[in-house]
């Protein structure tokens, strides 16, 4: 689904001493099927932004379009439940939302609420367990018996069980071990391609944004600071540092490489191996000429 924000503002506790403007005149477009990374310093308004995507918050000003759904400041959101079925949100530390007696029941909770029939749910569960790399033997165990990382996977499966067409991820890998982080992110990337999802990833990790996203939005103090293709945005070291963000390591290394050898390697989403080979070739070529 295409998503568009049109001059959206959101203020927490307006007209009180605690008034806080979390979003200020924010406008952007997300095309259907794209993988968008939203990056920003803590408190830049990322989490507020994503809560607008399924109508948990209503803008204080402006208009949001998500597919055929319109969210405006003045009016109540029509068909909010239908919207929530389309937009799945994996919140930060989603394992906190687990509550059922068994893992199977917890995964089934979402689709059940949206009226998916039992048979269909039972068909989805094993597929989901496989997608999040959990053995089927766990299905009848309590989610509270699991390790933190496994609980996270169950919670993610619980959101994926809705089969949403827009998937919103709020720092899905925070607090996981490196291997778990990699697995989860790869799983999202695969799902994104396979199910033709529109994926929105909120992250602190410039590496993830660079690796998975095809569009990056950088937020600062509730406003859009930069927007564009990842390899274009992430080379602007000075601009990024102004909002306490770092250039991803890969790009840092390429820049250092350029400074040292005077050879520019444009970053176009190559893998580490590809880059290493490229450098090797360039350096070998250099050696020949010298």
């Amino acid at each position: 689904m295409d998503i568009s924000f049109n001059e959206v503002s959101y203020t927490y506790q307006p007209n009180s001493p605690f008034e806080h403007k979390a979003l200020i005149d924010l406008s952007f477009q997300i095309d259907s099927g794209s993988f968008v990374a939203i990056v920003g310093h803590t408190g830049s308004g990322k989490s507020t932004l994503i809560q607008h995507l399924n109508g948990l918050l209503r803008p204080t000003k402006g208009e949001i379009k998500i597919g055929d759904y319109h969210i405006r400041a003045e009016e109540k959101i029509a068909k909010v439940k239908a919207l929530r079925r389309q937009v799945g949100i994996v919140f930060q530390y989603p394992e906190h939302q687990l509550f059922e007696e068994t893992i199977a029941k917890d995964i089934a909770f979402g689709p059940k609420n949206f009226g998916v029939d039992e048979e269909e749910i039972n068909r989805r569960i094993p597929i989901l367990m496989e997608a999040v790399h959990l053995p089927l033997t766990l299905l009848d165990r309590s989610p509270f018996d699991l390790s933190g990382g496994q609980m996270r996977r169950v919670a993610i499966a619980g959101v994926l069980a809705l089969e949403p067409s827009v998937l919103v991820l709020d720092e899905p890998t925070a607090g996981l071990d490196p291997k778990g982080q990699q697995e989860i992110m790869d799983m999202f990337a695969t799902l994104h391609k396979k199910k033709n999802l529109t994926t929105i990833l909120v992250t602190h990790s410039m590496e993830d944004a660079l690796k998975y996203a095809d569009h990056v939005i950088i937020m600062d103090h509730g406003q859009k600071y930069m927007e564009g293709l990842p390899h274009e945005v992430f080379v602007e070291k000075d601009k990024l540092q102004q909002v306490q963000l770092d250039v991803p390591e890969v790009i840092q290394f390429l820049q250092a490489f350029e400074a040292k050898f005077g050879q520019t390697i444009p970053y176009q989403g190559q893998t580490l191996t590809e880059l290493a080979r490229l450098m090797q070739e360039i350096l070998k070529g250099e050696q020949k000429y010298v």
Partner: protein
Amino acid sequence: MSNSIIIGQYVPGDSWIHRLDPRIKIVIIFCFVVFVFFANTALSYGWLTLFAIATAASTKIKARFIAKGLTPVWFLIIFTFVLHLIVTREGTVLFEVFTFPIYSGALIQGFSISLRFFLLILVTSLLTLTTTPIEITDAIESLLHPLKKIKFPVHELALMMSISLRFIPTLMQETEKISKAQASRGVDFKTGPLKDRIQAVVPLLVPLFVSAFKRAEDLAMAMEARGYRGGEGRSKLRELVIRKQDIIALGLFAFVIVVLFLLRS
């Protein structure tokens, strides 16, 4: 969520009410709560109202904010008023509403009781609006200190209080977070038949309890790791000291009470 409830919510500020010693504030408010019941003439009520409003004004918190915070209590105040109109049958009949007689005594009673209510709530909420929860617990610990002689666990009580106060906002945030997560999974907290709405609380309460117990365990562990072993010989980071302004405040309040008794009949 419940952003409008201000009872128990501290508003940072730098008015002289904010800077008063919390013990003095508690003592004054405690006395005020008692003395409100001594008012029995229009003048004495007026005097106390003046005191309450003057105090509220000198906190420099926006009047609109205080008034908005009292909204849940307005209902109670109006309810008391109406109840008195209906039940009390003293004095003369003033007029009739749908053949129901309204007595003059009822009007006076209703008005004074509601005013008492209003004053009590206004003044007590001023305490929490201008005093951090930590200050309040420190003050209570210090005020209850004499009870230590009869083996009353004053320090433990104060600790329990400050811990629970500390966790109110945390738990509220947690509730909001979990209810949003469950709402995203299709739980409807706001509409639908009552039975469904009660059931909708389960996915909210279970995670909330789980995390509360976890937090308690973590906190206990962290306290133990830092060598906490109760109040014996424990020094304080913030010493409470009575200063000149506190004495002045007490004097002013004593003056208010003396005038109150002069205005009584």
